[in-house]
């Protein structure tokens, strides 16, 4: 159940950022998801060791938050916002299209383990509604048809890295505000792509 040396080194750096080790729980949970693809019992035990908590205390924290997945949620987690602003702009149709194309309802992962679907509450893209995230990389102004294309593309291409700006260009419409430049950093699994947690693609880690 042990972590790779790289993850251990990262965990040590993270621990140093906090005055008390318990504070590192959430970052370490992300590390653990990076290691295993989702939060396993062993992963939570490991985090418990690092932070001086009991495993059930770690689970209590992890299960409070929607993004710590205690079950396998595919290679690509497609999250469709269906909160009020997106709903007003047709999010329910987008959700239906995604579920139909992926062949699984909210909260489930397809049989191949490639795509998981969920509807989520507001993801802060209301100006570009309706919005969808793939592994938390954002696409705004998406139509039901584009959403189907997105799911098909994910299944066929199975890219190693998910980059918001790429997805936006392929499948998106109007955004909440301009991005101005194109970024290339991206996600490698169903967790937020963030350098200090090591959860960005290899080539993006600094």
């Amino acid at each position: 159940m042990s972590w790779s040396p790289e993850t251990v080194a990262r965990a040590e750096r993270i621990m140093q950022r906090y005055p008390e080790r318990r504070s590192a729980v959430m970052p370490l949970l992300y590390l653990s998801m990076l290691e295993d693809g989702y939060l396993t019992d062993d992963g939570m035990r490991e985090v418990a060791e690092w932070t001086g908590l009991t495993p059930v205390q770690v689970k209590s924290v992890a299960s409070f938050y929607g993004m710590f997945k205690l079950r396998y949620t595919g290679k690509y987690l497609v999250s469709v916002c269906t909160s009020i602003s997106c709903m007003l702009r047709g999010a329910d149709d987008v959700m239906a299209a995604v579920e139909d194309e992926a062949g699984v309802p909210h909260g489930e992962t397809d049989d191949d383990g490639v795509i998981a679907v969920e509807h989520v509450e507001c993801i802060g893209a209301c100006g570009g509604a309706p919005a969808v995230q793939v592994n938390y990389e954002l696409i705004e102004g998406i139509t039901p048809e584009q959403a189907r294309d997105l799911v098909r593309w994910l299944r066929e291409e199975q890219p190693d890295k998910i980059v918001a700006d790429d997805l936006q260009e392929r499948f998106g419409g109007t955004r909440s505000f301009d991005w101005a430049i194109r970024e290339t950093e991206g996600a490698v699994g169903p967790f937020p792509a963030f350098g200090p947690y090591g959860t960005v693609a290899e080539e993006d880690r600094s």
Partner: protein
Amino acid sequence: MADLVKITVDGKEIEVEAGTPVIDAAIDNGTYIPHFCHHSRLEPVGLCRMCLVELETPRGMVLTPSCTLPASEGQVIHTKTPVVDKAQEGVLEFLLINHPLDCPVCDKGGECPLQDQTLGYGPGESRFVEEKRHFEKPVPVSDLVLLDRERCILCSRCVRFAEEVAGDPLIEITARGNQAHIETFPDEPFSSYFSGNTVQICPVGALTATAYRFRARPWDLRKVESTCPHCTAGEAIEIDASQNQVLRFNGIDADATNQGWLSDKCRFGFEFIGSAERLTVPLVRDGDGFRESTWAEALDLVAERLGAVIESRGGEAVAGFGGARGTNEDAYAFSKFMRAVVGSNHIDARMDDAPAAELLAAVQPRATIGDLDTASTILLWGPDLKEEAGTLYLRVRQAVQKRGAKLVVVHPRRTGLDDRATWKFTYRPGTGFGTLEAFASGAGDFAEARKALDEGPVVAVVGLTGMTEDPTLATAVAAFAAGLPDAKILPVARRSNTFGALDMGCAPGLLPGRVSFGDADAVAAFEAAFGAVPDHAGLDTSGMLEGLANGDLAAAVLVGADPVRDVPDGALARRALEAADFVVALDLFLTDSSSLADVVLPAEGFAEKEGTFTNLEGRVSKVNRIVAGPGQTQPDWSILEEIARRMGRPMGFDSAETVAEEIATVAPAYADLRWRDVERKKPEGVLLDGGWYTPKAPAGPDVDADMVLHLARTLYDDGVAMRQSLSLHHLAPGGVAYLHPGDAERLGVTEGDQVVVVGSAGEATLPVRFDPSLPAGVVYVPFNQAGVPSLGAGAAVEVRSA
């Protein structure tokens, strides 16, 4: 004492300590405020929102929970306004929408706060037409406790208890919002020594005890208050029984002792009472076995055989063991029986596993349990309290956790309090005197801890760290503590009423009421009451066992004593009882010891008789009867009286209360203490004074050996009460040899391998487990585990790969 403030609750002015939660202040003063999450022994969290009240503020009335509102001068609170009523009705409705209506089959039905408050404050009928939340039916959270998540109202009392009080955060709320529920981690159950408390404080039937589940309906229960029969802390308990069966113990919130808590051993260790293996008729030896007899025959036989021994060898050829498992009244009768009827001072309630009797009975300055609440530093040099004195463990833990008291732990290995200790020192058993010397001088690592002890108030909790420890080490530690500028001593020992028995004179050097043989006037007073009293101290347990084994002594009286299982050198005890000319045992069960007797007399046990216990502070509390003893059982005092009569020396008792009456008349520390005085002070009981013993420092040699043995008790073991409590018995750790990994490597063994431990009095082959908390060169073996031969009390041992 904090400042007193005046607050007004529903127009009534009351005076309370500043900072008291308003809910407690109101309830204590007769205004009930309904609540679920609030528990006065847990930190307030204000979750359930049932206790809302209106508080007058400069900006008008504010609705606020009263559990999180600290009382402050001039507060004006209203508990029964329309706004409050509406809010409380609302909370109840919210709690009920997802609560299953299975009250008829729920253990809690009939004593359920949710049920009661629904009657008192709730809406008439449900307006909830949606589907209720569903969870899989009851899941075990430990061997002893089951959880029904549908009934749970998420008050978090269990979670808070586990973390705040027990220090075992193994049960938690998981998920969020409407999906939130209580959970344990896979393969990591809530196996806390204190798990049963959560069943008691759960305000609904979500947590239930396997030992009690479905056994009774609350309205069928009869209840009586009593004192825990397992620990020396004197926990106040309520015994529930139905149809002459004891079904449950609950803790009572006695501030001085257990504050409502019990260890699981105390809570669930009631099953022995109703065990099918209880003795119900007298037994007399018949070849290798026993035959049943009448009381008359058995008593005549005992009187005749004891009389013959006394006639031929003198009273001092008779040894008396026990007294610690019964009431003070039983112990007094035993003590008087040995002195006045038999004419022997060979009597001991300690099973060769406790510090000096004077230290336990009469040390001064003696601390109370409550002194732990104000101590600035606590010195713990004695048993692992988590294993041997559960509620005391909780009290020390609380002193550190809540109040920031400093804690110094000195012990041969890890203890349950290490995670809270400010300083922890580990040493090899057998090197205690040297360690104490270094500690006292403040050398090296000891410097800071030593300094803390000079700043009072200090409470020193003193006892034996293990059974291979020289018992006089405890005296030396107590002497050190007594020499500190501002310290009191709290002596600890095992077995429910050890302190009471010693107070009653079940000790070779003490007469009832803590009278020493050195006190000529007091001894003379006993001559008057008892007739003749031998004028010198007798033998202690190991002395008596040796005497029996080598023929110096000829007969033994066992009163609730099982030396074969309880003393460190069980083999010696067996030899002693086998060698004796005559042995009579008063017991609840045929134990390893009583089965070696010539006559076994069936005794009434706990919950079947009335009397008093005395705890480790010297606090006397009542023990009460709620069921009849099985078959022909009799209380110890009465059996002893019957024998005495047949020996022509009646003691003059015709009820337990007449025994108590005599204690109040002749035993100095208990002078004028009547049952009614004790009852009146319920649930705390009466704290006695009467300490006269200032420990003096005996210096002892340290043991020098390659390997030494740490032999110590665990909460669950193979003692008779545990063996007869089916819910608990399987929780004992069993035979294990714990070794430091370094030693294991040296011996060429690893975890799971077998080693032979050769002790001073026996050897055992045991599986190895690693314990990095041990100093090098120490093997730790839990004492009294099923199937493990006794090793003896010598510290030096040999360990080799099997």
